[in-house]
């Protein structure tokens, strides 16, 4: 495609749009570091009076954020690890093995993909409460240990591995696990990493499910902790403390984004349309 002339003119709207996109984030940072922010009404504050960390200390003390971090990180790692494990095993079977009932299993996977958690949370909740799992890590993790979308996504990626290579390894008597580990996963890395990152972002930020299955601080995850922190502040809103709390919550995802964005681009680009 040949580029239109005067392409550089597009920098004007692009910079403007970028500023609009970054404004909420910048405001969050300024408020989080500015000790005076809550007191300044009616003034444009795009630079803090002083950069200090007092808000972070105050926010950290007002809620057990340490515990929330542990819960969030444990839950997210648990879900993502289990999901990649169960999905890659299932996707391998569906992509490379022959067995009776394969079409039914594939149909079930597609069906499950169409059903959002937000529509079936009542029976899910009842199952967990029957098991006495309310306020446990199991309740936070196990409902998402298997994912139809994960199976579907990895199946699409696995299909791109040349079949002759898989058959050659089968001929050598390699077990499916060996083939999966030594051939399939290394060759589909962008897809696997993309799935892992998208899942991490989603489950780290997920408020709906933890809201249903936990009601004590001991098992509260960060987004839920944030919402409690907001609810605690009645009347006079200390936005500086809240933005410090938000920034603490967001930071791990920003770091992850910085580390993974190269893979993410490759992954979404190559598999985006099929996901």
């Amino acid at each position, binding site marked *: 495609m040949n580029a239109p002339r005067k392409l550089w003119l597009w920098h004007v709207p692009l910079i403007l749009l970028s500023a609009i996109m970054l404004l909420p984030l910048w405001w969050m940072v300024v*408020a989080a570091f500015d000790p005076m922010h809550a007191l300044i009404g009616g003034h444009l504050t795009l630079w803090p009076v002083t950069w200090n960390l007092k808000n972070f200390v105050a926010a950290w003390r007002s809620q057990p954020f340490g515990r929330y971090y542990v819960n969030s990180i444990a839950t997210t790692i648990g879900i993502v690890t289990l999901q990649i494990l169960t999905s890659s095993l299932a996707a391998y079977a569906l992509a490379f093995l022959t*067995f009776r009932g394969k079409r039914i299993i594939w149909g079930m996977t597609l069906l499950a993909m169409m059903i959002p958690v937000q529509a079936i949370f009542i*029976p899910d909740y009842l199952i967990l409460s029957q098991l006495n799992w309310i306020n446990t890590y199991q309740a936070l993790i196990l409902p998402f240990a298997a994912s139809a979308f994960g199976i579907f996504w990895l199946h699409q990626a696995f299909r791109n591995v040349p079949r002759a290579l898989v*058959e*050659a390894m089968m001929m050598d008597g390699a077990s499916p696990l060996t083939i999966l580990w030594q051939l399939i996963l290394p060759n589909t890395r962008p897809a696997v990493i993309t799935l892992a990152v998208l899942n991490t972002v989603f489950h780290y930020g997920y408020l709906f499910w933890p809201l249903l299955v936990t009601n004590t601080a001991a098992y509260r995850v960060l*987004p839920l902790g944030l919402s409690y922190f907001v609810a605690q502040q009645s009347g006079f809103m200390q*936005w500086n403390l809240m933005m410090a709390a938000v920034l603490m919550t967001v930071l791990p*995802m920003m770091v992850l984004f910085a580390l993974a964005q190269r893979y993410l681009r490759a992954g979404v680009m190559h598999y*985006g*349309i099929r996901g």
Partner: protein
Amino acid sequence: MLKEHSVRERTPWINASSLVRYAHRTRLVTPWLMLAPALLGLSVFVLLPTVAIVGLSFTNWNLMTPHPHWAGVANYRSVLTSFDFWNAMQHTVIYAAAVAIVILPASFGLAWLLNYPLRGRHVYRMIFFLPYVMPLAASGIVFSGLLSPSSGLINILLGHLHITGPNWLGSVHWALIAVIAVTIWEYVGFYMLLFLSGLQQLNPALSEAAAMDGAGSWPRFWHVILPQLIPTIVFAGVMVVIQTFQAFDQIYVMTAGGPVTATTTLVYYIYEQGFQFFNVGQASTASVLFVMLVGAITVIQWRGMHRWGGDGS
């Protein structure tokens, strides 16, 4: 694509009989062992609850009695004639439509522009994608701050223009618009990446051939490029609808469905019926209708893709 049973024909250079033996051994046990963990999880937490929700929709239950009571189609009658349900449905449709109408052209335009060898395009892409990694609850709180009536940045900016900004989240007219704005801000970069992937899979030879035949840039876009992008556009459109239909987190932290019921969407309605009023029957009925709606949209997607010549898979 190679079918599994044609393995033998496709691999004449290897010892066919040992492959058959291998296949035989693995056919019975291995596939099921590998599928077992995923199938267990999906059965217990997705498929069984889907059956259960249909069952529960024909009962009345407040969770206090040990068992639900059979109610026939009474719940369907009362939900489908209830003001609250249609009110929530209306908010959901407005919300989904507004997000889709803004986000699809905006993200397509951004992708189109950032597909050119423009200096700094990687930085722009990163900036637009950045909000996507924010937890929705965090984005919701940041926007609540920005939109707070007296000390929020938006109303201060409007004040400089001598406009008195409304109490955004406290206003029946503006609250849903604020929720729509957060959602667009959060997801526009994600859809931009989707469209970029579509644009990069275009076949350049087709455009060149059309240009050689003297087609101008607009006819080239309309007749050559756009048809190739139809699967991506349909996919993105359906994804926006499904994503917005499920929205909950940002609504919970920003408005909790209010003021009055101005931001009560279908999912929020189900949540309130089930977990605040303990009206399991009606919540389940609304859930069934919700699944049917999402299912219908997904089917339309696949149909649409096939009709327009996409591979739909």
